[in-house]
């Protein structure tokens, strides 16, 4: 247990530091991309997911891994993901964002965590009914990772999927680049070749951007102390997150947040006299009949808060922030929706978008679509007064 706990500490603190320094937020990544076409954080999320996919694929192929998390797939991912996406956009922080902001001293996000707990409890109480009325009719197949069933070696498959992802991204930014340049839109005849050239334009932009990023990183290394106190590019955070996620994958499992949080809720309730193990969801599913106690992934996510607090203290970003009264509904409603949604899916932004896609889990592709749809709808609602572009 001791060495595993050490891995949990290294991975958890590492994740906390990288999330905090890179302001690595999945809500921001999608919301600001929809609202302002701001792709700065989106780039970080993409980079972390695709890089982790490549390294996990290689580790899996070589046999250096502890296991995949592949829930059975169906419409549950779409519905639960949507509820979670709406919740995290309203709350102003995803599952991982809530953790690192709790570490930065936001009482608002401790309250969000508390109400995520309420969501987990509500789900646990309703679980027997949900199983027959929700999960049974909406689940279509056994959970599976494409790494496990594909005839293509996992490492190669990961590189292939990551390349496709990169090309899709390049097409998108290439098209955007030609949209903003009025010169290229002068005649209808010039529009068509521009559309076809979008991936090329995008890839060139990507290469230039990456080269500029690498040069900046090298310069930042010359003044390590000062640079470490400054905010980091989300891509730097992505590199760090990938490194600790590979360590976690080879030693323990994939990275998840809301599963361990739901276990924390059961564990904390058991400490105040509730027989959590007697509830089917906690007893036989989350704790797998092994008794209600602190598991290693529970320790890991607690260390995320510690890591974020350390990074925030070091950067001068830490302070106890008292929420305004008018923001309390965001924590209460957003938190509850995140807690319940993450169980209905199951899985949160980290489990499904980051880890799930990186392990090519069929369930996670559906859940990720649900989450992004939830963010899209909620973003539209939040920006209704200021005439958002979407």
């Amino acid at each position, binding site marked *: 247990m001791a060495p595993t706990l050490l891995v949990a500490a290294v991975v958890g603190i590492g994740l906390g530091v990288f999330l905090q320094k890179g302001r690595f937020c999945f809500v921001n990544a999608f919301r600001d991309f929809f609202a302002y076409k701001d792709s700065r954080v989106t780039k970080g999320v993409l980079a972390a997911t695709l890089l982790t996919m490549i390294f996990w694929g290689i580790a899996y192929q070589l046999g250096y891994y502890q296991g995949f998390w592949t829930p059975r797939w169906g419409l549950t991912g779409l519905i639960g993901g949507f509820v979670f996406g709406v919740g995290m956009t309203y709350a102003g922080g995803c599952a991982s964002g809530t953790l690192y902001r709790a570490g930065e001293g936001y009482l608002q996000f401790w309250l969000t965590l508390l109400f995520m707990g309420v969501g987990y409890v509500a789900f646990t109480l309703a679980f027997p009914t949900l199983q027959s009325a929700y999960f049974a009719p909406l689940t279509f197949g056994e959970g599976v990772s494409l790494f496990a069933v594909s005839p293509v070696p996992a490492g190669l498959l990961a590189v292939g999927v990551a390349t496709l992802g990169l090309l899709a991204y390049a097409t998108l930014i290439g098209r955007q680049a030609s949209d903003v340049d009025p010169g290229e839109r002068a005649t209808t005849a010039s529009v068509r070749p521009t559309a076809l050239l979008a991936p090329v334009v995008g890839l060139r932009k990507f290469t230039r951007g990456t080269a500029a990023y690498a040069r900046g990183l090298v310069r930042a290394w010359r003044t390590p102390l000062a640079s470490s106190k400054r905010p980091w590019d989300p891509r730097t955070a992505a590199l760090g997150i990938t490194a600790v996620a590979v360590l976690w994958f080879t030693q323990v499992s994939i990275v998840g947040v809301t599963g361990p949080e739901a276990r924390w809720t059961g564990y904390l309730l058991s400490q105040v006299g509730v027989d959590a193990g007697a509830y089917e969801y906690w007893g036989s599913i989350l704790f797998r009949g092994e008794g209600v106690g602190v598991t290693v992934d529970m320790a890991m996510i607690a260390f995320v808060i510690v890591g974020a607090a350390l990074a925030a203290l070091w950067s001068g970003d830490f302070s106890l922030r008292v929420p305004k009264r008018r923001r309390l509904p965001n924590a209460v409603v957003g938190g509850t929706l995140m807690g319940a949604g993450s169980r209905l899916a199951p899985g949160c932004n980290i489990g499904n978008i980051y880890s799930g896609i990186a392990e090519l889990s069929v369930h996670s592709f559906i859940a990720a679509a649900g989450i992004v749809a939830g963010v899209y709808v909620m973003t539209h609602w*939040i920006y209704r007064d200021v005439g958002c572009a979407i």
Partner: protein
Amino acid sequence: MPSIDDVTDAPDELSDERAEQLLEEADLVQDMMGEVCPYPQVEAQKGLQKVDAGELLVQETDHVPCTENVPRAVGDDAEARVWRSGDGLYRIYLRKQ
């Protein structure tokens, strides 16, 4: 001067002195303490609708991501500067264009 700023696109920072001076000149000050994204972004856009071109809108915030997200959200509508206290307090200065 090499800095991680080269890769983060953060708005220019104001000195303590200049930040205080500008705060006194501000035409509209929004208290965004305790608020999280995206509400300061929405409020900044609403605030800029209230002030005239050339006027200064200042947001006081304790939310780190706002120092980048708010200037990006208002885009070309305002010229943005940021002041960091080094103690979890930030001010975003938006001069309407």
